[in-house]
């Protein structure tokens, strides 16, 4: 039996929560989740409990859109521009800083837990010492305005499994890979199809790069968003994934989508890169698995909600997801 065969995909738990769940971190080897939500709080609960008891962490003043475990801390980021360090044992905030001047869209951490990375609509990627909270480095490379004179947005960031690289992606489809050690730009990858500018019917835009993930060998970078949209009133573009051999600057895979519309909000590689997982949604949700070796879709299914974030467990047999009004657990282990 394969422990993480996407064809065995099944929902094993759904927990309804009021509001919107934007971000998720999982306590290793447990079903304890930390979820950033639209009520400005981090929710701490055991998703597999019969009746999950939720402990709420208060401190943000807007949506909580990034949570990550870094060393012994949980770090959350929000649209209030704050990063807050939490002690998950005492459930108390131990540090709160004004990290960005605009919305923090995503937070990541290096595998060794030494650094926290944040991106925000001030179009800066910042590297933080996870232990001290000191700013280590600013990374500037994304334009603050779109070509059409509107504010741009810096949605996504990811750290490579070897801990050496950071990737960032913005509203107009520009992706940058950075050297974490010195802040140098190593590659710029363009995914312009993920940005729709409507110059005629509605005269504004939609889209952007919403998710990034490195393969386990840190060689490939997957980029997620949505294809071109006809009616930008809705998330009407096909869910889209592009994969790059970023050091060569080559696009190796393009999954333009077929059945599901909406944004690919989260990407994750299986532990040995057997597959690439993509999830997101429009008014509904989806989950997709791609076989990169064969360049094909393995499986796709409707999700119980628009998925905003997910975490794979260590062997890739469980998926913990957070989204619109729900937390969900999928299993891939099969019978």
């Amino acid at each position, binding site marked *: 039996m394969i422990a993480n065969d996407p064809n065995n995909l099944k929902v094993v738990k759904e927990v309804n929560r009021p509001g*919107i769940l934007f971000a998720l971190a999982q306590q290793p080897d447990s079903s304890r989740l930390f979820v950033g939500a639209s009520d*400005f709080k981090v929710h701490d609960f055991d998703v597999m409990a019969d009746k999950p008891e939720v402990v709420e962490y208060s401190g943000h003043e807007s949506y909580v859109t990034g949570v990550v475990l870094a060393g012994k801390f949980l770090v959350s980021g929000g649209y209030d521009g704050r990063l807050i360090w939490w002690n998950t044992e005492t459930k108390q905030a131990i540090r709160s800083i004004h990290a960005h001047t605009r919305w923090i869209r995503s937070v990541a951490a290096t595998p060794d837990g030494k650094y926290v990375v944040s991106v925000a609509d001030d179009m800066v990627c910042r590297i933080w010492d996870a232990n001290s909270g000191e700013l280590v480095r600013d990374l500037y490379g994304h334009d603050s305005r779109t070509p059409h004179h509107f*504010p741009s*947005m810096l949605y996504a960031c990811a750290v490579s499994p070897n801990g050496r690289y950071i990737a960032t992606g913005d509203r107009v489809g520009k992706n940058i890979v950075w050297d974490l050690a010195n802040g140098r730009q190593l590659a710029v990858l363009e995914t312009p199809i993920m940005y729709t500018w409507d110059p005629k*019917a*509605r005269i*504004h835009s939609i889209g952007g790069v919403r998710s990034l993930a490195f393969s386990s060998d840190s060689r490939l970078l997957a980029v997620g968003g949505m294809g071109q949209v006809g009616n930008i009133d809705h998330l009407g573009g096909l869910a889209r994934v592009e994969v790059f051999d970023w050091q060569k600057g080559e696009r190796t895979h393009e999954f333009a989508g077929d059945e599901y519309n909406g944004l690919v909000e989260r990407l994750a590689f299986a532990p040995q890169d057997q597959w690439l997982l993509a999830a997101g*949604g429009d*008014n509904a949700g989806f989950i997709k698995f791609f076989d990169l070796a064969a360049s094909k879709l393995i499986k796709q299914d409707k999700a119980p909600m628009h998925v905003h974030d997910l975490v794979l467990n260590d062997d890739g047999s469980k998926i913990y997801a957070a989204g619109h009004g729900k937390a969900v657990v999928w299993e891939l282990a099969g019978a």
Partner: protein
Amino acid sequence: MKQIINRRSFLGSTLASTAVLTAADMTVLDALQAPAVAEELKRQDKRVILFWLAGGASQLETWDPKPGRPTGGPYRAIQTNVPGIHISELMPKMSQRLQNTAIIRSLNTKIGDHGGGATLMHLGRRDESALQLPDLGAMIAREMGQIDSAVPDYVAFYTATEGRSGGTGQSGFLGARYAPMFLTTESKPADLSLPPGIEAVDHQTRADLRELLSNRFAQGRKSSSLGSHNEAYARVRGLMSSEQLFDISGEPQAIRDLYGPTLFGEQTLVARRLIEAGTPFVKVSRAWWDSHGQNFETHLELVTELDHVMSGLLDDLEQRGLLDNTLVITMSEFGRTPSINASLGRDHFASAWSVSLTGCGIKGGSVYGKSDEDGQTVADGEIGAAELFATIFHALGIDHEKEYYVGVRPVPLTEPGTHPLKDVIA
């Protein structure tokens, strides 16, 4: 430069207008009485710029934020320069210019489809199948325009294609004379320029010849259609001479920066030039706000732009001494739902939404009405489109109870029994 109107020119235009009215207007003769003339002169110096936020701008991300509530979304409310009044953080520039603005937070217009909502908010009432009614721009053009004006009375920009049919505007029974000069694909009117090879002096010579022949033909004849014919020629020549008003290339960079580089900003600068030259009503449509998905991103783009353009316009009007006589309106066909859908969008919502009125005749730094804590219903001061229109007319010195006559049928500017919002009037 303020429009200068003297009594003689007013009387001339009013008398001329009696000959060409398409709808019998029983108030015209009354207007010749001295006190009414004085009022008319005062009224004709006033102007309106309407920002038509087509598709439905969110009240929660503009004038009526609900921070911290489940419906409030992620944006914070910020203190304005008027103590006690907060608006969305997406409008930092307007937050420091609220002393001339009245916010109305209690519209319940009940119509939640684009077409019906747009019609209602253009006409101030539901349309009729048997009689095509004039919209706000046409009524104001009729009330404040001058018959011999060298500039158009009613100009409407609507460049985006989505929702354009609902933003066209109509003069209804007032006739084509008050229909908007409707600009879509270009920000300047087509066919105003002289044809290639025709110089201005040639054009004038031809006009003089036409006038000579026309006057000779008119000798000994009595017909209202002759006056209308000559007026039409004069008006076309006037419009042709207004072509330069649509060309902003000569504006100083500092002025252009006030409005910003977007099409909406540029058209608003043209609107200012038009009202400065005497056009009574300009509608600048900014489409399309229909954010069923990604409401917060859409409003980050569009409210940021609105904040810059509107604050730039108000600064420019104030510096030119025009703000006291210019009413700036922001209005949509409806607002957006307090509930946030799974696409992080907001849907159509007509039950408790907001508009703003700034400048001429308005009690600035005020808020009228109130929605409940989640913005789901009107908690205080519920009004509809009719009350809003009555308030606009009142602010401009126009009697909202005035009646037009279509045959023997009186058609008041606003529905009978409607009252303006006294708390909003200066």
